[in-house]
């Protein structure tokens, strides 16, 4: 049984709760970036660049048939970034939102970001891009949910 989206968020909250200082938290975030399902080079296009990040972030989404839901489709994300922290952040989002149905993605809360101590990345500051990445994921979800 795979974890639900909420369970996967809780898992990250628990994981980050082990760290008491910023240094460990950021080192873990950088480590997470290394597990990110990397975007194929052919998808590293300008179209897949997330607007609104100071570093470059590529995010690709593909629709796949769900193996557990008989008639459902899920969205498979791959990504990359030229900055290590940004790569960690996108990896965090991919871990939570990957291979979920569009409905799950659209309905998810983003509170977990705050709870793992990365609140500053949630601000609408044009430099930090987390909101832009989330918006992009939700736009993909919206686009795929309206397709037959």
């Amino acid at each position, binding site marked *: 049984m795979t974890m639900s989206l909420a369970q996967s968020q809780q898992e990250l909250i628990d994981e980050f709760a082990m760290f008491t200082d910023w240094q460990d938290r*950021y080192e873990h975030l950088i480590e997470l970036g290394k597990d990110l399902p990397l975007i194929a080079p052919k998808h590293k296009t300008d179209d897949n660049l997330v607007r609104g990040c100071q570093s470059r972030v590529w995010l690709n989404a593909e629709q796949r048939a769900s193996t557990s839901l008989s008639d459902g489709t899920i969205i498979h994300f791959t990504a990359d970034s030229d900055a290590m922290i940004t790569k960690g952040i996108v990896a965090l989002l991919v871990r939570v939102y990957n291979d979920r149905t569009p409905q799950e993605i659209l309905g998810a809360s983003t509170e977990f970001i705050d709870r793992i101590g990365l609140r500053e990345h949630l601000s609408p500051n044009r430099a930090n891009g987390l909101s832009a990445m989330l918006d992009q994921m939700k736009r993909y979800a919206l686009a795929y949910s309206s397709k037959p």
Partner: protein
Amino acid sequence: MKVATAYDIEEIRAQFPILKELVHGKPLVYFDNAATSQKPRRVIKAESAYYATINANVHRGVHTLSTKATEAQEAARETIRRHINAKHAHEVIFTSGTTASMNLAAFSLGQLLLKKGDEVLISGMEHHANIVPWQLACERHGAVLKVIPITDSGEWDLGAIPGQARNDIFGEKTRILAISHVSNTLGTINPVKELIAQAKKKGIITVVDGAQAIAHLDIDVQDLGCDLYAFSGHKAYGPTGTGVLYGREELLNEMPPWQGGGEMIDVVTFEKTTYAKLPFKFEAGTPHIAGIFGLGEAFRWMEDYDKAAMAAHEHMLLEHATKELLAIDGLRIIGTAKEKVGVISFVIDGIHHYDLGTLLDQQGIAVRTGHHCTQPLMERFGVSGTTRASFACFNTIVEVDAMIAAMKKAVKMLR
């Protein structure tokens, strides 16, 4: 003016309430002064006192408060006139900042001067605020934007302007020269006076973007000989939303208005409107009176605390930071001109500026990362962005050392 004494950094720091703030539980080290400087208590108090005691619209009412507000605004104008040594107070036009000043300049000078095929000359180190308004003006009038190339050290390469014979800076069609006094990204202090003198011989109108110079250099607009000089208040210890466009009286009288509205008119009929005299012709609508009041206080504050001593202090910080930064493996400084203000931009091999800026912030250190609104300059140096530390009068050697230690920690995490 105070009698010059030894530079009392603790006394100066005590003027800035924000320096007591903690960031992520650590003492704030504010090295983003080129973006906006922090404000001394006197400026904060002045702006608040304006609202608490004399708030009214200027140049309108016959009532006492309106008179007081008008007097306060005009006193600030006189303070700024004196500070930049303009001939007349009405040569000081209040704007919302350098960006508004440059848009006013480009729109109005464009209308006045530019015809099809004319040229506007800027430099390759300009802030977008001194590029885009001229591009818009050029598009409107069919004029051409030309650019002074930048050397590897971050200085003008006046002998290599495309389309010009070597050592021939201006073309037959050059009408306007618009250049920054100090580069926001590199810190370079440009030899504007010399270039203005050459431009004037050819009858070219000269516009200086002084945003990064105003808080760090003595500005004498008559000595510089420029026609227009723009700056922001908020980079010079003043409130946000304030700025100035200085203009030579004769030129301002010829220039058409930029924005229309209240305050800038003489007589309005539906057939024709005549405009108010200087400076009001260029100040449509209700100005940022409280901010202007604070801006005047900021300039008096700088004078009381001796701007030259501040500049010397900042230079000492620049030299110390440069030496310490260069000891970090793989670090390269972008902008190595001989004459610089306390601005230092750098890149580190294999490390993204966003990562570095984020990890410095975690340690309480505020630096700017990115392209600094100078994308063409980033392209010139072949980098996507830099990390920039920019100093002000209240920064200390201890803070520079804290940044260096924080950087070493960050670099270790990122490698």
